[in-house]
Every structure is written in C-alpha cells, then in structure tokens.
C-alpha cells in the first residue's frame, strides 16, 4: 500500500513542552541534521504525519528551521499561554518565512477567555486551532491536520461538503 507522508512543524519555545500535552509521544532525533526532533504519527493507515519540533526560533537560530519550513505546507505555533515568548516566536517566524503559520493551543477556558477578544481579528488569523487535551496523539493530530489544511485551502472545506452532499444524494 502506498503511504503518504505529510510533513509539518511545530514552532514552540522548548521542544519538551509538547510532552505536557501528550506524555506518551515518542520523540525521535535525527542523526543528521543533529538535534532535530520529530514525531511520527499514523493518523490513517495510509497517512503518516511527520511533525518536526522546532524550538531554535526562540534563540533566533534559523539553521534547522531553514532546512524545513520553506518546504512544508504549513507550520503550527504552539502555545499554552499568551506571553512574550509567543510574540517573539511569531515575530521571528513572520520575518523569516512566507510559509503559512497556524496557531495551536489546548482547549483551556482561561486561555480562551484571553483569546475571546479575537472575534474581530485580522483575516490572517481567523481563529486558533484548539485540541482536546485528553485525546490520544493520533486522534488529536488527525483533527489538527484536517483543520490545518482547511485553514490554508478554504475550498477544501467546500469540496468536502460537496462530496458529502453527493454521498447523501
């Protein structure tokens, strides 16, 4: 069976923070380039998602990120709280790359309250992709990837809706 591998990246302050969300994640490290950490998730039998964990943007070190970000369809900026680190990561990313950046955050009432004010936000950030904290990584990432694709290709949503309608008919 042919396998499709989708590569994406998470921009975050410190790679280990991702373990706060999914303790059971199996994080691997490449030999070359060194210190590049990634997670492989089988979201479907024929679809594997390769998620690179990039924390070097925090230190404005773009060596690793330059090898990945320009070639992937989109990246996620992960945050569990809104602080200056988020701003710094955003700033470094936006100033360096043209690759679309999406926001990823856990479902958290306090965080949502903070983000509530985003109803009238710029069109470039319609909303944040929230994931459920208790979901297993594969399930959570299935939804994260789907939402991610729909954010950058809005027509994908329409075509999907069309397909479903056809099926119903």
């Amino acid at each position, binding site marked *: 069976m042919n396998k*499709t591998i*989708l590569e994406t990246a998470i921009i975050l302050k410190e790679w280990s923070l991702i373990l706060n969300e999914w303790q059971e994640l199996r994080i691997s490290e490449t030999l070359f380039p060194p210190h590049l950490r990634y997670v492989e998730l089988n*979201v*479907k039998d*024929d*679809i594997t998602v390769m998620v690179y964990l990039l924390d070097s943007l925090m230190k404005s070190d773009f060596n690793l990120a*330059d090898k990945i*970000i*320009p*070639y*992937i*369809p989109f990246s996620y900026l992960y945050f569990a709280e*809104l602080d200056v680190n*988020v*701003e710094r990561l*955003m*700033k*470094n990313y*936006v*100033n*360096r*790359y*043209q*690759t*679309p950046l999406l926001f990823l955050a856990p479902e958290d009432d306090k965080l949502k309250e*903070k*983000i*509530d*004010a*985003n109803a*009238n*936000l*710029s069109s*470039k*950030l319609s909303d944040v992709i929230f994931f459920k904290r208790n979901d297993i990584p594969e399930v959570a990432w*299935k939804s994260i*990837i*789907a939402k991610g*694709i*729909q954010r*950058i*290709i809005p027509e*994908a949503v329409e*075509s*999907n809706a069309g*397909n479903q309608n056809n099926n119903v008919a």
Partner: protein
Amino acid sequence: MINVAVVSEEKSFFDLLITHYNRLPLYFHWFKDTDSFTEQLKLEQWHVLLMINRDFDRLHDWLVKLSENKVEIPIVCSTPIPTTDDRQLLWQLGVREIIPWPVHRQELEFILKSFHEFLAPPDEEGEYLFQGSLEFINGIDLLRMFGKKSCDGILHFQWAERKGRVEFKEGQIVHASYRQMDPLTSVLVLSSWNHGFAFFKPDQYVSRRSIMLANEQIFSECREYFKERESLLKLFPSVYTPLYPHPDLNYEDFGHSERQLLHQMRKGKCLEEIKNTYEGDFNFLLKKLTTWFEKHYILPEKQYQSIKAEKEKEDSAPAFRRLVQKIFNRKESSVEETFSSDFEPELQAEEESRKEYFFNQKELLEKINRRLEE
C-alpha cells in the same frame, strides 16, 4: 610633597612602592639600614620613616638604635602579622603606626594617602586664604586668581556631596582631582560649576605635577569646554523643557547608568535638573543626550504626550488582538513612523527578504484532507 625614608634590607620593597605609588604626593628614598639613614638624617627633611622588615627581631634592633640616636621622625613599621605583644613593644618604642603583612595594594594606597593628613597640622578656623560662593564667580576667573607666584596650596570645591580640588604650586596648576576623572578633566568640570562654594587653603604638601599644560593652556581648554557645552545645549529646545524617554524604548538596550537616567526622566526632567543631579562630566552626558534626542529616544513633552496617547489607545485593545496586529498588520496599516526605524529593525523585514515558500502540492493536501474526513 612628603618625604618618606624607606628603611628596608630588601630593595624590592622600595621598588614596589615607587612603581605602584608614584602618583601619590610622596617622595620615597631607600636606605639599607638605620645606620645609613642616620648618617644622612640631616641632609634632608624627612617627614616619615617607613621601616620594612620580615624579621621582627631585626626590626626591634633598628628601633632601639633609632631611639638611642633620639630620632624624632614619625615611624611607621611594616612586618608580617605581629602578635599583640609585638605590637605593644613597637608602640613602646615610639612607632606611630603598624602596617601588618599581607596588605592589599589599595589598602596600602589608602594608608599612604593618609600620611598627608596624619602629618598635617589640624585644621583651624579662619585658616582659609579665600572662601566664596561659586554662583557669583566664573570658574576661569577663580582659577586665574591663584595664578600668582606666591600661591602654593589647594583650591577646594564643594557642591553638596561633591568635592573636588585643584592644587597650585607657585601659581601653576599642577594637579586636580574630582571623582575618578583624569586631572585635566577634573579642572574642566570643577571650573564649570556654578553652584556650591570654593575655598583656598595654603598648603606645602601638594601632589606631584600631573597636568603638564601651562595655566593659559588650561584656561583655554576651559573656554573650549564652555563653548562645547553651549553648542550642545543649542540642539535642545531649552534647558527648562522637560524631556521624556520614548514610550517604546527598550531599556534592555542601555547600560545600567543610562537606564537609571532614563528611568529618572520618566516623569520628565529638564536639562537644568539633570545637570544639577549629575555628578560626572556634564558635557559627556550632554553628547549622549544629544544623540538620544536626535534618535528620538528622548522627546520633548508635547511629542511625548501625543505618542503616549496613541500608545494608550493601542494598549486598550485586547491583548491577543494587539499581539497579532503588531505582527501581521504592520505592513497593511499605515502606522506613522513616529520614531527612528533603529528601534525594531527586526520588524522591518520585507517580503523579498523572507524565505520563499516552495510547497506547491495543493492537490495532495486536498487528497489528505478527504481521507482524513472519511
């Protein structure tokens, strides 16, 4: 100048003194032992006898010999840490002070500096040849007053906690000290004061000459210093206009003292106030302030208030919105460039300089999306 006779069997001690403390107003002369010193005792007027010896017994013998010869010069002894008994013995033999080893360089410098006060007669009232307020006299004129051949002594400057001195030898300015500044800068700064008072004290102990310029050259330097200040001040609206740091200033870009100054300016400070509170070289500070003013790091009140109002309006927007707008809307919105672009150069990245987006397999994404939705 204080003449110090150094009696030490090892010349290396004397060499250390003349190498490290040559700028002090002390003249050192080496004698191998007390015999050679007593032979030359009458040839020079000695103010202090500094006896250095590793061996306490040998030091004791020297002191006994000196008391036999009835030498009446104040004696200072230096020896490896003496016991209480040793100390008592030394004091009984007429030693004025004991410098135990080991001694730090700065500590020794402090002790050597104190020789001057330790030997000088106590101050008496009415001893000053001149005393007056600096508010009514020009600094150069004041210095010129003591340029006569007969003037030997120290002109003390005092402005609140600040103290400085200019030393004259036969009417020539030979040395000056104020904080950690070099002698000439000290003269320039002290002569520019127009607060506090000055008094002149005739004194035979003045420092070794450290300013090699003739008086007229020094005065000309002072005039240049005034002119420089005048021209720097002209760049500001007025010395009484309050100045404020820019609301967007990143204080981390500044050093400790600069941050402190900027912090003090947060409630508005005019140049006159800064001058009165700044203890260093004000021209130096003015140059820095001029650069800040040109770069809009500091602003006059009106400009500051308008930027602040704009900023407050922006700040009142919800936090997350502000964060996102700050990053994404920068290029879209026509935000006026209110200050120099030096502030946030990292945000000036243009579209062309950003790394290209190479991913073009849109169909693949659509396919994945369909599979995920199934």
